[in-house]
């Protein structure tokens, strides 16, 4: 015990150092990316932060509690629509973000319980199919709730959503400081980063708590967990609602960032991508999940920029349509990755040991 404690003390210096370095990197990142590569790349970084929040939310459900959810994007949609309906000319309601974002998160959490309740008895493939259906139902509702009363504006979506405003500062307009103009992607970057940090802290603290232990126990053996006095129903619903909560926050941010949402943004492919981020990164391991979300957001965009010119350069003409080639390479990369490293890019020690044991047989 004392040995372990001393080791921890030694590590503290390293941890502080690591913290400072990452804080500085994250603080100057937008200027480096925005300055060297342009605002469109910074926009991609902003999106990566949204996906980090989504992936961390889904990770609570899939990674911690072991409940396979293929309809997670529904909570993103719920958060986004809550924000949009309460902050746009559509109903001419303009509530500030500090009301709409928490409200969107709560509504999403409520939908989490709504999904969780009927599926309490299901697990594995059966659960996956029901959640898949749930995700589609939410999307189809958004698509069709324009008649008889127009609530969601149907497939046209909701336009002119209010940007985030803090005091007199609107995130919708470029910021002028000392003659330099900073695009709104800069402001959103810091705003998203702050909330991402909050979501990371929330997920990490939950994992290392009585609740987190209960999730792992349930994932490992739900019958033994029940026999040890865990209320399986409550623990499952808690996982669904807390996961949905992060999804709802990301959804509200997405709505204000884009200024426009439509049901198209919340399809099945999005749910699958978020799940892929978790699996590829390292299921249940927060740093791995963050890495997975960043890589899977940025890599396709890099491919988009590289593939066209590369073909022109090597073959002198376009052999494959760049958009197709991009998805082809991306898909292939996922397959190869899963074959070579099924535990993910950055798995937790526990999960790595699990896979190592499996390899040994």
């Amino acid at each position, binding site marked *: 015990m004392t040995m372990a404690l001393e080791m921890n003390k030694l590590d503290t210096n390293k941890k502080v150092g690591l913290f400072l370095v990452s804080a500085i990197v994250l603080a100057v990142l937008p200027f480096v990316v925005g300055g060297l590569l342009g605002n469109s790349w910074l926009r991609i970084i902003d999106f990566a932060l949204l996906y980090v929040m989504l992936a961390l939310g889904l990770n609570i459900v899939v990674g911690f509690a072991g409940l396979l959810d293929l309809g997670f994007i529904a909570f993103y949609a719920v958060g986004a629509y809550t924000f949009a309906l309460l902050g746009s000319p559509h109903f001419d309601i303009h509530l500030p973000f500090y009301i709409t974002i928490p409200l969107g998160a709560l509504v999403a959490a409520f939908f989490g319980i709504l999904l969780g309740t009927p599926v309490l008895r299901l697990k594995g493939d059966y659960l996956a199919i029901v959640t898949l259906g749930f995700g589609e139902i939410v999307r189809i509702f958004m698509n069709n709730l324009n008649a008889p009363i127009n609530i969601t504006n149907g497939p046209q979506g909701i336009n002119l959503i209010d940007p985030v405003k803090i005091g007199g500062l609107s995130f919708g307009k470029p910021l002028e400081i000392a003659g330099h103009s900073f695009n709104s992607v800069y402001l959103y970057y810091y705003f998203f980063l702050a909330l991402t940090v909050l979501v990371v802290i929330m997920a990490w603290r939950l994992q290392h708590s*009585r*609740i987190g*232990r209960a999730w792992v126990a349930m994932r*490992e*053996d739900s019958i033994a*967990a029940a026999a*040890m006095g865990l209320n399986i129903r409550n623990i499952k619903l808690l996982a669904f609602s807390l996961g949905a909560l992060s999804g709802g926050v990301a959804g509200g941010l997405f709505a204000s960032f884009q200024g426009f949402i439509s049901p198209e943004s919340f399809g099945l492919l999005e749910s699958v991508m978020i799940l892929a981020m978790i699996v590829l990164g390292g299921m249940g391991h927060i740093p791995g999940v963050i890495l997975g979300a960043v890589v899977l957001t940025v890599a396709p965009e890099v491919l988009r920029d590289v593939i066209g010119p590369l073909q022109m350069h090597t073959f002198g003409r376009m052999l494959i349509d760049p958009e197709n080639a991009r998805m082809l390479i991306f898909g292939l990369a996922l397959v190869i990755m899963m074959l070579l490293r099924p535990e993910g890019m950055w798995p937790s020690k*526990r999960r790595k*040991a699990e896979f190592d044991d499996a390899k040994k047989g």
Partner: protein
Amino acid sequence: MAHALLKIEGINKRFGGLHALNNVGLTINKGEIYGLIGPNGAGKTTLFNVLTGLYQPDEGTFTFDGQDLFRAKPHVVVGTGIARTFQNIRLFGEMTALENVMVGRHIRSKANALGAILRDKKTMAEEKAIEAKAWELLAYVGITDVAFERARNLSYGHQRRLEIARALATEPKLLALDEPAAGMNPSETEDLKVLMEKIRKDGVTVLLIEHDVKLMMGLCDRIAVLDYGKKIAEGVPEVVRKDPKVIEAYLGAAHA
């Protein structure tokens, strides 16, 4: 007069056409080691699952420590004070031994999600207490040296002990052990016997299923015998072992 801790009457449980428990009734007194024996398929584990809330009985009454537990959910049963182990050990394999015992503290602790996220003083103090209690229980069953090992990597004997520690973490009044000596060698069985005596001395009533009849005779205060879902005998070991119905159930009619 002994004080009844657990009392069931007229318990029936059917699986399709199989009448797994047929009108079973028994009383376990506070502070005793109560044994449950019977040939394979007699319904011992089914009865165990009924007593711990994993199975819902079809009919009957079930009271424990003055509370009605008929068809109660497992977590309610554990909350009232019944904890169990499993015949085919069911630990949380990827968790460490320490974490396994900490899970057992779940029902005796309160921290909710908000407390976990905010890490207020009360939550942190509770978390510390959970860990301290878990260490204490690992020491109690004598496996502190493997506290940080994953449960699935422990030796068989250690796994059995860990399961008992995890069950004790729920602060049971009745500890139900399903064949704890299965697969153990004589010296391990002897250690187990010492542990069970210690648990009983510390005020926990013990319910025990076991095949090792010799162990049961030396350890239990009273024994019930199940055969084809029916209780065919109950009493002190010396009487039960001479009961012709018991001998018949175990060895066949010719020996009776």
